[in-house]
């Protein structure tokens, strides 16, 4: 499942939306590419490809906060986690929406993604261990072909591990779409996301029985929803396991060179 290479950059959109056909089984992921140390200057960085969705995350810190926080004494006892998500101008095939945003600072979507990432990772990081410090995460969405938040979570997780920041656990994530035919599609691409009647993203710490983020849009009954979450959790665990495997490999590779 793991490839140590960068994927092909831009493929023409092969399928028209009307006669779209999923080419792989409903419960399988697209090809997953993981990489670390993509950005040399950062304390840690991660790169994730989910099919054509590509994300780079870089972690800086722990370092003294750049902007003074007004948090007061209690906040100074804990580290601070900040996050900035940027969508590249060419991240989707219809560039119009993003192009108009250039030079206008962060778009609403980017800001919301940043908040979601901070909230997902805050309980995972052992911020008590980094008093008066700031840990800054920068995420660039290079290409968006569905399940972008999942890819961002994975990349951030890799970057944090790469930066050796103390975590409760690696965070894994998965997206499940429910198609108009009531099929549960794992790791949907952009077309599937757009056609879906419901879309659910779940992030969880791998080594705990808890969830750290759930985001769901679309009308479902409570039972259907629970089974979709269940499926997403299972997929996320698989992804998380391969992530762990990858990190262990990386560690083994780097260890001799350190000595």
């Amino acid at each position: 499942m793991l490839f140590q290479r960068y994927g092909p950059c831009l493929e023409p959109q092969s399928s028209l939306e009307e006669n779209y056909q999923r080419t792989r089984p409903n419960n399988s992921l697209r090809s997953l590419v993981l990489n670390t140390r993509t950005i040399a200057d950062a304390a840690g960085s991660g790169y994730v490809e989910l099919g054509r969705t590509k994300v780079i995350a870089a972690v800086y810190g722990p370092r003294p906060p750049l902007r003074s926080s007004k948090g007061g004494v209690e906040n100074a006892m804990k580290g601070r986690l900040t996050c900035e998500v940027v969508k590249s101008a060419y991240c989707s095939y219809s560039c119009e929406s993003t192009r108009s945003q250039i030079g206008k600072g962060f778009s609403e979507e980017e800001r919301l993604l940043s908040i979601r990432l901070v909230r997902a990772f805050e309980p995972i990081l052992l911020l008590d261990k980094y008093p008066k410090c700031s840990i800054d995460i920068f995420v660039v969405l290079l290409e968006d072909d569905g399940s972008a938040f999942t890819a961002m979570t994975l990349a951030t997780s890799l970057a944090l591990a790469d930066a050796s920041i103390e975590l409760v656990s690696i965070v894994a994530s998965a997206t499940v779409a429910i198609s108009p035919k009531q099929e549960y599609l794992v790791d949907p691409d952009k077309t599937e996301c757009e056609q879906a009647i419901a879309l659910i993203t779940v992030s969880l710490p791998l080594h705990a029985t808890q969830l750290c983020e759930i985001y769901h849009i679309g009308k479902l009954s409570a039972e259907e929803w629970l089974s979709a979450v269940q499926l997403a959790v299972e997929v996320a665990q698989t992804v998380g396991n391969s992530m762990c495997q990858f990190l262990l490999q990386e560690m083994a590779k780097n260890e001799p060179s350190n000595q």
Partner: protein
Amino acid sequence: MFAVSKAEKSYLLEAIALGTRVDGRSLLEYRPISVQVGVLPSASGSSRLRLGETEVLVGVKVEVGDVAEASTENIQIHFTVECSGSANADFLGREAENWSSELQSALESAYQAANVFDEDRLKLVPGKFCWVFNVDILVLDTGGNMLDAISMATRAAFSTTLIPRVYIQENDGVFELEIDDNPNACDRLHIHRAPTFLTFALLGNNFVLDPSLQEETSARGKFSVAVDTNGDISYVYSFGLLDGVEMSKLLTIVKKTGKLLLDRLDHSIENDSSST
């Protein structure tokens, strides 16, 4: 920004562990809700809702808008959430923008997913004209659990929204819309499917429904669900470590409380609109 001291927080958490809250409510109890409809004469539908200390004012304005040729949409809804300066002077500061866009996107997603409106009744000319609903939400006072308050107020405002009658004339493929001037020639919207949000705060190991500002600030997580009268879910956002086992329990509560809440809300809207 609103802050809670360590002592306050531990007091709050201990009380909740014992099954009670600092304002005397039980864990799954809402604060008193009062709603008033038709408060803004300049809007097509409006409401003012108070949930404990939280107070919001919602105005719905209906207009006919143009749509792109290819699109099939009959309805557009735009939500804007604005925090009035009166709400709280230093409220959130720079974060205010994030705060309001988060609320906006939650409402927008929930309304879109729930397919609230009767599309057939509201059809104008597909690919030419559609109804545009501008929902302007003004927060007058922030006392926690903004999402629930806003969603209930929006439902209340929509349920009193009057849509003017429109006559469509076609001349050689050119459509002309004539809107009835008579203020009585209006139809009420049917918004039975409009969802309401239910928000739990995660405090210690307990879930607390309808968190106050104090509880919200000390919470380690939040679980928001949009639910309609059938118990169908159209939006969920949860953060903070949460046990997977808890979820089915929460959803049962959501289903039951959501229905109760919506019924009560509809009832009080009916009462209020008949009295005015």
